[in-house]
């Protein structure tokens, strides 16, 4: 029998010491890893746990007219909200609240139930947005009976004159995804200028957002608040617009589609800028409904279009001023030389008609402009050729942006031989030059371009930037290539248009004021309708009416350009509007 002593596995005191050492090193190694190696990361995580950052919104700058009348400003709006953690009995409070605000308890409760999970604890859930001041005072008086209900005040952009200035000021609305992508400083829910001056001067008006740090506990209850960055309020913007004149001119265009520009001829300051029809910009601030949006975008009269800078139509006879300037500048034709107008002009085997069926007889340049003789300008057109006319027209600011401080300006079109070949793959026809010379055909101009050109005739040829911001120095963007005495001839022809009894704008003559003007009528269809009464012609086939004018008295000079879409004859449709505006202006500045 073999007796084998089995071995025994045993630990002793030394093993215990080793245990202690293991404990020491393992925990310290781990602490070193957590607190020193990864400490920074955990500090960040701890901050994320307890710190929330919120923007503090500055008030957006006011927009005022030249006399300080407020056109756009932030006004307080009041929302009623509930903080559910502060409310002991939600159903009871909602029942009471419904009595004050005129919203049924069921609707309030439904809203509460559907929203409550989207709102963080201790944060307000908005129940009734934009309550009236009357409701608000009722609520404030009974606030102790409405535990948990809070009044939240936030600014809302308000446009006091709505559609009258919509095309100048534009509007603000909540930034959409595109805006957010473009500007990294924007957050969801921020308001930005979408169009008009609100868009153009958004950075100036909006100011700079501030930042608030909020420390919360695990239940999201706010323990501390700290302003990290104060908001910088937006700067006010004063416009060159004269509110009363704007309102007056607005009424003159009532029921029509068209545009009016009133400009200071020496500075380029715009006193009135009207485009009708228009829209209420306040609709966009609160978030326009789909139905309303659809209505605005599908309206056949395009109320969203700013006709002053975006409607492009042929200038009609207004363009004759450009052709006359061109002929004078390039010494192609003497202003005193007379041409016989039999009522038509023959080129090849085609007859080009003058608007006056029986012709104007013998006319020189001044008479041709004031009576708007087509035949005279057919002749000039043939003489000058399209490329020279185009080059000159561009130097007069046509086919170019005027640089007015409004977004989405269109530059129109000045046709050339090259352009036609590219566009239609066809050669330029000589007849088209004649048509262009009387301002029809491919030519397309905006009312603001016409107004700027007209101002240049008065101010010795300076093409000024149309200016909307008060106090800006006039910015000369170009000089019309024309000699002083030649410009005088054109200017005097315009005065003759008003003063001569044969002039097409004779009806706007006013005593004691030097007024010059040029009418334009843009043919929409064949001339069969021309002699008929306007009302009998279908709206869409009626001619477009232009009148551009200037008026001088003492050291003041104004330009008024009126365009009436499908308005009929330039003199009869646009003339009375021009006259009323001058009468109004000079009565006020007397």
């Amino acid at each position, binding site marked *: 029998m073999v007796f084998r002593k089995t*071995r*025994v596995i*045993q630990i002793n005191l030394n093993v*215990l010491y080793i245990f202690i050492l293991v404990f020491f090193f393992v925990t310290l190694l781990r602490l070193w890893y957590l607190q020193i190696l990864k400490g920074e990361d955990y500090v960040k995580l*701890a901050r994320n746990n307890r710190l929330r950052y919120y923007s503090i919104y500055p008030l957006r700058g006011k927009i005022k007219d030249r006399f300080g009348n407020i056109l756009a400003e932030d006004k307080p709006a009041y929302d009623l909200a509930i903080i559910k953690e502060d409310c002991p009995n939600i159903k009871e409070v909602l029942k009471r609240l419904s009595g004050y605000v005129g919203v049924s308890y069921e609707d309030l409760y439904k809203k509460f139930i559907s929203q409550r999970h989207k709102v963080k604890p201790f944060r307000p859930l908005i129940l009734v947005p934009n309550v009236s001041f009357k409701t608000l005072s009722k609520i404030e008086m009974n606030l102790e009976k409405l535990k948990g209900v809070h009044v939240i005040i936030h600014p809302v952009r308000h446009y006091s004159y709505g559609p009258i200035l919509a095309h100048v000021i534009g509007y603000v609305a909540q930034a959409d995804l595109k805006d957010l992508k473009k500007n990294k400083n924007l957050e969801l829910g921020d308001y930005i200028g979408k169009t008009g001056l609100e868009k153009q001067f958004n950075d100036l008006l909006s100011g700079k957002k501030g930042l608030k740090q909020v420390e919360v*506990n695990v239940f999201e209850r*706010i323990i501390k608040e700290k302003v990290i960055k104060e908001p910088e309020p937006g700067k006010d913007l004063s416009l060159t617009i004269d509110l009363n004149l704007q309102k007056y001119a607005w009424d003159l265009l009532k029921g029509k589609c068209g545009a009016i520009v009133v400009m200071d001829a020496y500075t380029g300051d715009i006193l009135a800028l009207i485009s009708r029809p228009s829209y209420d910009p306040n609709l966009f601030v609160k978030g326009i409904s789909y139905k309303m949006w659809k209505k605005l975008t599908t309206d056949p009269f395009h109320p969203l279009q700013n006709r002053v800078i975006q409607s492009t139509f042929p200038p009609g006879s207004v363009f004759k001023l450009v052709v006359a300037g061109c002929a004078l500048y390039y010494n192609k034709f003497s202003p005193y030389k007379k041409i016989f107008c039999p009522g038509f002009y023959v080129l090849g085997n085609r007859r080009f008609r003058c608007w006056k069926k029986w012709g104007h007889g013998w006319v020189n340049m001044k008479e041709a402009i004031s009576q708007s003789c087509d035949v005279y300008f057919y002749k000039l057109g043939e003489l000058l050729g399209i490329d020279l006319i185009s080059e000159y027209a561009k130097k007069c600011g046509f086919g170019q942006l005027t640089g007015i401080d409004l977004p989405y300006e269109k530059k129109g079109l000045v046709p050339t031989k090259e352009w036609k070949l590219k566009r239609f793959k066809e050669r330029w026809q000589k007849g088209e030059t004649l048509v262009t010379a009387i301002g029809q055909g491919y030519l397309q101009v905006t009312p603001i371009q016409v107004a700027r050109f007209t101002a240049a005739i008065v101010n010795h040829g300076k093409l000024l930037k149309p200016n909307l911001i008060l106090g800006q120095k006039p910015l000369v963007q170009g000089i019309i290539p024309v000699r002083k005495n030649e410009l005088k001839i054109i200017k005097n022809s315009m005065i003759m248009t008003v003063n001569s009894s044969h002039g097409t704008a004779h009806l706007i003559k006013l005593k004691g004021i030097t007024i010059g003007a040029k009418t334009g009528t843009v043919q929409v269809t064949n001339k069969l309708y021309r002699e008929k009464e306007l009302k009998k012609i279908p709206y869409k086939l009626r001619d477009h009416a232009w009148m551009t004018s200037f008026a001088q008295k003492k050291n003041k000079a104004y330009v008024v350009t009126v365009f009436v879409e499908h308005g009929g004859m330039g003199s009869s449709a646009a003339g009375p509007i021009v006259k009323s505006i001058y009468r109004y202006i000079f009565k006020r500045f007397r």
Partner: protein
Amino acid sequence: MELKKSITHFNWALFFSFLIIFLIGVFNLYSASSLMTEEGIKTFSYYKKQMVWGGIGMGVLIFMFLLDYNKIKNYVWFIYGASIVLLVWVLLFGSHIKGARRWIDLKFFSLQPSEIAKFAVIVTLAYMLSEIETISWKNFFKITLIALVPALLIIIQPDLGSGLVLLLIASMMMLYRGVKEYVFWPVIYLIPIGLPIFWHFLSDYQKTRLLILFNSNLDPYGAGYNIRQAQIAVGSGQIWGNGYLKGAQSQLLFLPEKHTDFVWAVFAEEWGFVGCLVLISLFCIFLYYLANVIKDTKDDFGRFLAVGIFFFFFWHIFINIGMVLKIFPVVGLPLPFMSYGGSFTILSFALIGLSLNIFSRKFIFK
């Protein structure tokens, strides 16, 4: 005569190392009982109550120190039997707190029978081990049964941490006695086979807590919430800590169970790596003196009592800190002298008293 000798050979080092940790514990508990509100810091009374438990504990400590520990031998089976009765009682009639039956409500005091069971198992095993030379199969089964019955009763409360720590203490005590090789190796080999069965009996949240060790982003708002917040608290303490009463994780209540199982995170957040280094060192010094009590004990019962007491503290300290630091899974064990809790504090003081007693009595037999 005996008393005089006991006092001349009093283990001052052990006494002070434990007392310093306890005082730091109360000081830290003041912060752990506080929370930041809009009006300022508000403090609950846990730290005051903990001082009361400390006072009672000190009384129990003195009693345990003065008593002739050999007399405990006579009551071993009574103590053991009583603890089993209490464990069964708590399962049947205990108060339900956070989904577990762990406490017997005595109006002025909630008794935790699992703490009594820890004491009972230590004295019972010390007695049993003092009667044998080595651990054969027969002894192994006997001792294992003695530890396993209360451990299982505790685990089904459920209190996995206390149950497992009981088994750990028991196995360490057995190893100190010496386990026959033919018993040791089969048992070691059985562990990997037993693990899947053990896994099967775990509840879902316990399984998640184990898995979190390997994947820190698991269930961050459920079972993983506590440990994640504890990591953030500890880590954000960095080198120097956020300062006393300035631990944001703890003061703003992101850290759960901050006055009990996760009290270490409160300390680590406010005192940083340097503070932790000091406190870990203090714990090591304490454990070192506690281990030294074993040296030169003249009787086996005293020696194995000292071994049991050492491992009681060692495992509680290591597992609690280890669980807060994500070295171990979250099992829910208090940290001696730091975590708030009546039964556990009094038991800790009692065991220190016993250890001091054993140390002093070494010299009486000389």
